[in-house]
């Protein structure tokens, strides 16, 4: 389970002064459910997810992931999280297997467990054809599978996906969305960020719309449709975000 409690992140910018990248955001993600964080570029999605994955430290507030506080026990949180984004690249000079094994060892797996786990994952994701190929020789699809294998190697109960399909071709993107569903079906807590409406409509149990670092609204797709009297998520999104967007432009 993930529980964000008044999560905030401020940055100092030389030109623009203080920037509130994430401002007092609270939400809860349940096991066996997918929480979709929907927002435009620069809305604060990546910063929020990076704080949940303890890559960044919150300026204020906190989050509890699998019972561990992201501020007090970041290493324990990371041991329970699989984090995947288009920015999480592979070590080019390692083979696919070495890469996955490296992260397995960093997650504290002993060699016997690691071998079994790697064999299972490589069979499941059909990766045996390229397990000894260096990552810089892999196709985009193979790279994505290797990244997925990395997030799964320690079998974490929480999965965080930051715009995982950004810039991918449709076939590779489908591999990722299928994987996200599989995680939910396996009872994992899943949160993912995107600006692609169709992905949210297809995948998410709960949707949170974020703009200017603030979580403006959250609910299931049906609840949002009712509330805003719109069927298309894109229309709902525009209705939610426009007043804030205009106010921001005026400022």
């Amino acid at each position: 389970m993930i529980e964000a409690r008044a999560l905030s992140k401020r940055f100092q910018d030389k030109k623009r002064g203080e920037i509130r990248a994430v401002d007092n955001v609270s939400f809860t993600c349940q096991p066996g459910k997918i929480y979709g964080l929907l927002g435009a570029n620069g809305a604060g999605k990546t910063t929020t997810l990076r704080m949940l994955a303890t890559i960044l430290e919150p300026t204020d507030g906190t989050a509890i992931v699998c019972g561990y506080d992201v501020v007090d026990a970041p290493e324990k949180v990371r041991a329970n999280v699989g984090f995947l984004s288009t920015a999480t690249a592979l070590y080019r000079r390692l083979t696919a297997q070495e890469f996955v094994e490296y992260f397995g060892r960093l997650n504290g797996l002993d060699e016997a467990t690691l071998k079994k786990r790697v064999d299972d994952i490589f069979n499941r994701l059909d990766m045996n054809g390229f397990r000894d190929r260096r990552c810089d020789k892999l196709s985009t699809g193979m790279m994505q599978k290797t990244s997925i294998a990395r997030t799964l190697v320690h079998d974490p109960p929480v999965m965080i996906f930051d715009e995982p399909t950004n810039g991918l071709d449709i076939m590779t993107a489908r591999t990722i969305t299928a994987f996200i569903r599989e995680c939910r079906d396996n009872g994992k807590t899943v949160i993912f960020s995107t600006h692609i409406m169709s992905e949210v409509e297809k995948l998410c149990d709960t949707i949170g719309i974020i703009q200017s670092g603030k979580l403006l609204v959250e609910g299931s797709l049906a609840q949002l449709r009712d509330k805003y009297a719109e069927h298309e998520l894109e229309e709902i999104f525009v209705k939610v975000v426009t007043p804030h967007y205009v106010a921001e432009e005026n400022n």
Partner: protein
Amino acid sequence: MSLRNVGIVYRKELTEALRDRRTVVSTILVPLLLFPVLSVGFGALAIALVGKAKEEVPKVMLRGGEDSPAVVEGLRKLDKIEIVPESSGWKDQIINKEIRAAVEIPVGFQSDVAQEKSDTVKIFKYEGEMKSEFATEKVEKYMKDYRDKVVKERLAAKNLPDTVLQPFEVKQENVAPPEKVSGAAFGGIIGYMVILLCMTGAMYPAMDLTAGEKERGTMETILSSPISRMHLVLGKFFLILTAALGTAALSVLSMGVSFSVLGHYTGKTAGGRDAAAGLLLRLGPKTVISVFLMALPVAVLFSATLMTIALFAKTYKEAQSYLTPMTFIVIIPAVAAMLPGVELTPKLSLIPILNVSLLCKELVAGTYHWNYIAIIFASTCVYAAAALFIAIKMFQRESVLFRS
């Protein structure tokens, strides 16, 4: 501290480094090949060129001397020299290397000598031009021998012994053992080399493991794993340290082998290089271990400092532009230690790099000032620990890791 995690990171970084052509070239191939190429290759080429220059029969123009036939005849009989008659533009001919030198015999030289009058024989040359210098040497030697002969004849005519002109001799004698002599002459170079190569060896991996990782997008991947940032820094740091020490060790090894091969090849004729080869062969395990023990905190200092600076960069290229000036900062104190007369003092023993460089000079010469060794080792360890502490702190700063 979990050494297991540090070891995991270290092993992975080592695997990647050994598969990276640039790292292998800069850390292993360059130090191994630099000295054979520079000393054996370049040295052999120089010897070959000098030999060829010596074999050439230089043309020397004779100016005057019509009334001094004995001297002219003597010059003409000289081996490996061709006397050419005087022609116009002789200075230009020397400059244009058509002739190598010109010798001017003053009018009435021979009769002046007979009458015990003083005269000056001039030799014109192209200074710094090797073949011109050889020709000049030959002519000068002939003229000096001729002068000595005249002096002897005059003394004999007056029934005076040779000791009239040389009442006593002055002789220098060395009491220092050979390793101290060559240590004083070449010890500075060993320290300089080890320090500089520690630096160059650390440079590439320091950039690759920090800015390179940011550029390739793997920083976020590794930061999302449960490893603590301190363990991550230490794993990376030990790899950079290995590269620094490995480069220095391989270089000294290759330098020793190159010099001894060169000494053998030249038949022990090249004095300076031979002494250096002798020194390296005589260094012995005690000196080698002492030098590397002193180099260890320096390598730690370099590895941590370079890693911290490179971490600020967003790209490999940016890191290069930050680290290249560092080479000069290191070279200046390392070279200063090689200057004649610069010796260890309590104040200098606290200046990083310069202190170790000076101490290496002493160690190679076989002198062990234990109080200085203690001060220098301790102070360098303090600097190194401070640099490593800063590196660990920097790895915990989001503004550095995610600088945009």
